[in-house]
């Protein structure tokens, strides 16, 4: 059974948070879906709250402190990302955006990503489509078709005939697992190990 690494980025601010709860359910569903495809999923959860100061410092100094670098390396090195944010003022939270601002620009290129969000009301669910999806398109990630939004009321309807949230979680996790299972694990080119030779920098030299 081959293994895929999943980085789970949760931008919830309270402890515990609805955002983390959604992130955990998406992670569990993805690991289940991968197992059905004979792939072992290994998830690493990043709570951005724990790194909020370092993220701001990175914006100001241009480098990640050691603890944050372990996190950015883990996300950049993962085979897939599950990214979950609370919706603040009709969009992702500032902390969520700041984290992706300090990631290397090409860290997520070609990487499968599942996007999800939480909010007090379902009226903001399209923030996933007009804010998160374009962000990850810019980062050249491959975003799965189903984005999962959980409003307060969704947490109470899990057992009903209308299993809205649970179904959406399962569908999104299945889509992510399909993308992941079809791919070979990520190997990133290291420009410090393997630099562009000078003759390619200055053709004719």
């Amino acid at each position, binding site marked *: 059974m081959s293994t895929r690494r999943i980085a789970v980025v949760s931008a919830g601010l309270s402890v515990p948070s609805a955002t983390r709860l959604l992130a955990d359910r998406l992670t569990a569903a993805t690991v289940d879906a991968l197992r059905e495809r004979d792939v072992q999923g290994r998830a690493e959860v990043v709570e951005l709250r724990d790194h909020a100061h370092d993220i*701001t*410092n990175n914006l*100001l*100094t*241009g*480098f990640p*402190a*050691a603890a944050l*670098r372990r996190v950015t390396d883990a996300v950049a090195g993962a085979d897939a990302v599950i990214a979950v944010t609370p919706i603040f003022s009709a969009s992702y939270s500032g902390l969520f955006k700041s984290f992706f601002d300090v990631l290397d620009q090409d860290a997520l290129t070609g990487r499968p990503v599942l996007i999800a969000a939480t909010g007090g009301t379902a009226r903001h669910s399209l923030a996933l489509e007009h804010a998160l999806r374009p962000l990850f398109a810019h980062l050249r990630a491959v975003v799965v078709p189903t984005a999962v939004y959980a409003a307060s009321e969704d947490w109470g309807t899990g057992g009903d005939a209308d299993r809205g949230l649970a179904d959406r979680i399962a569908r999104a996790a299945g889509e992510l697992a399909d993308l992941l299972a079809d791919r070979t694990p990520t190997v990133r080119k290291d*420009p*410090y*190990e393997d*630099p*562009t*030779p*000078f003759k390619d*920098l*200055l053709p004719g*030299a």
Partner: protein
Amino acid sequence: MQFGIFTVGDVTTDPTTGRTPGEAERIKAMVTIALKAEEVGLDVFATGEHHNPPFVPSSPTTMLGYIAARTERLILSTATTLITTNDPVKIAEDYAMLQHLADGRVDLMMGRGNTGPVYPWFGQDIRQGIPLAIENYHLLHRLWREDVVDWEGRFRTPLQGFTSTPRPLDGIPPFVWHGSIRSPEIAEQAAYYGDGFFANNIFWPKEHFQRLIDLYRRRYEHYGHGSADQAIVGLGGQVFMRRNSQDAVKEFRPYFDNAPVYGHGPSLEEFTRETPLTVGSPQQVIDRTLEFREHFGDYQRQLFLMDHAGLPLKTVLEQLDILGEEVVPVLRKEFAARRPAHVPEAPTHASLLAAAAKAEAGQARQAGQARGAAQAEDAGSAR
């Protein structure tokens, strides 16, 4: 090993007094600092080049020429010369001129500049930063080595039968360092030419620079200039010292907290842990600087940033006294004791001139031997 200082030339309000120096005051302060560097026994003064406020040094050779006239030993350098937005022809001429005036006490550090708007002000585009640095330097390298240059490239008007004037002093081009914070391409470029590589490590963690310097060393060897540990490496450093380390921390903290580059971000304690910044006693600075050698290998040039973030001139001069009297003499001794014999010093005009003379003598000797052998052969065949 060479020790010196480098300056950005920022005009910054002193956060403890609210006072901002004028441009004239800051420019004269930079000169005073350079003269002090020679007085306290340092080897190198390097000025930044900037074309946007709040920085004053837009015309490095004007400043360095003036300093050259008032010093005897100090090597005059840059940190950095903008190889992207300057015309390489003008760099070739300006610095050759400076070389003559300063009797060879000149080298340069190439850099790209990271301020987007500056590029279009000089007709360039920051997105072409690396290709500009590569092509412009290639032309500069030729202009100093070939008397007549025909050239055509992507970024500059072509040259037909062009001679850059004056020619480098004694036919020896100034030694060049390539400065970079993160670009593997620049480490590769420095290695290709066998030039020096200056890793301005002062704002970032060492792990990153270990990879960058290791890349340069490996490629230096690959291109046949010597073994990896003979590559010419320069490093930055940033220090503030008082006899009692607590006094240093107390005095420097407001400057740190409000500094343009990292102010209002990490704490002084976090930043000193993550970067080479050392705030404390002279002994702490000695210990920390000696650690650089353990992290990056034997290296040739150590430049300290001393005069930024609004520190008053008087304080900077006191810092230079401590650096010159208490820190650098110990570092010279300790580094020399640790350096293996096969690791070279940083090239200077004198050492490059001597090497050129030796190479010429070697060629002449070989030619003489070949002539002698040919004559012997002729004599033999005549018999």
